[in-house]
């Protein structure tokens, strides 16, 4: 099983350092696919996103999603980090890194993990607006459920 690293933290992550950690001491990795999700300013409306999470379950569920990916693709490493707390526009929210010998597995696993983090990891976004008021909780998107569902239909590689 590939080395899996899961973290839930308030502070920003360092994607370059996390990539180095995946690669350290090995020369069998041919491909690293990564995804970073950022807070958008929504056309200047947003002062920040607040991310509430369920401590304990967030790590556990991210670990389950990562283990599913590691069973599905021949991975050489998988890292998933999700932040909580107040994140200003432009700030990073989530990082997923997937390492493999070949690019198909790296891309597949990174997309899979992102799709399931969105629909299964217990995090909730709320908008803080530029006018000082508290905006609504962000609503879940049907497109995210469909993105996650497509993996059930796909043949396992």
């Amino acid at each position, binding site marked *: 099983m590939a080395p899996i690293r899961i973290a839930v933290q308030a502070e920003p992550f360092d994607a370059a350092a996390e990539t180095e950690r995946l690669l350290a001491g090995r020369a069998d990795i041919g491909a690293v696919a990564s995804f970073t999700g950022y807070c958008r300013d929504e056309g200047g409306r947003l002062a920040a996103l607040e991310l509430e999470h369920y401590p304990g*379950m967030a790590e556990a569920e991210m670990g389950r999603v990562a283990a599913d990916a590691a069973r599905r693709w021949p991975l050489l490493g998988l890292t998933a980090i*999700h932040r909580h707390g107040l994140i200003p526009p432009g700030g990073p929210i*989530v990082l997923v890194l997937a390492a493999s010998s070949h690019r198909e597995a790296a891309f597949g696993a990174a997309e899979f993990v992102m799709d399931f*983090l969105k629909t299964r990891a*217990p995090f909730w976004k709320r908008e803080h607006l530029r006018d000082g008021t508290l905006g609504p909780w962000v609503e*879940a998107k049907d497109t995210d459920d469909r993105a996650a569902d497509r993996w059930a239909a796909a043949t396992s590689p």
Partner: protein
Amino acid sequence: MKIVYFAWVRERVGVPDEVVDPPAGTDTVADLVRWLKGRGEGYREAFADEAVVRVALDHVHARPDAPLAGIREVAFFPPMTGG
């Protein structure tokens, strides 16, 4: 049994967590929700649309018909919007 609430479910219920002692016969998640809705307006608002509220038992996603026997922590929350 400890119950924890998140996001707008937490806001409507009015507390982030509580320890409850539901009556005998509260065997499933659905039973627990029915009992909670009898406890006040906030609970009724939180669970107004039961199909929307998600539940986890001891940190694992579950369905309304899941049994509560042996469970220490029940969590109620809206659909997830992380990532």
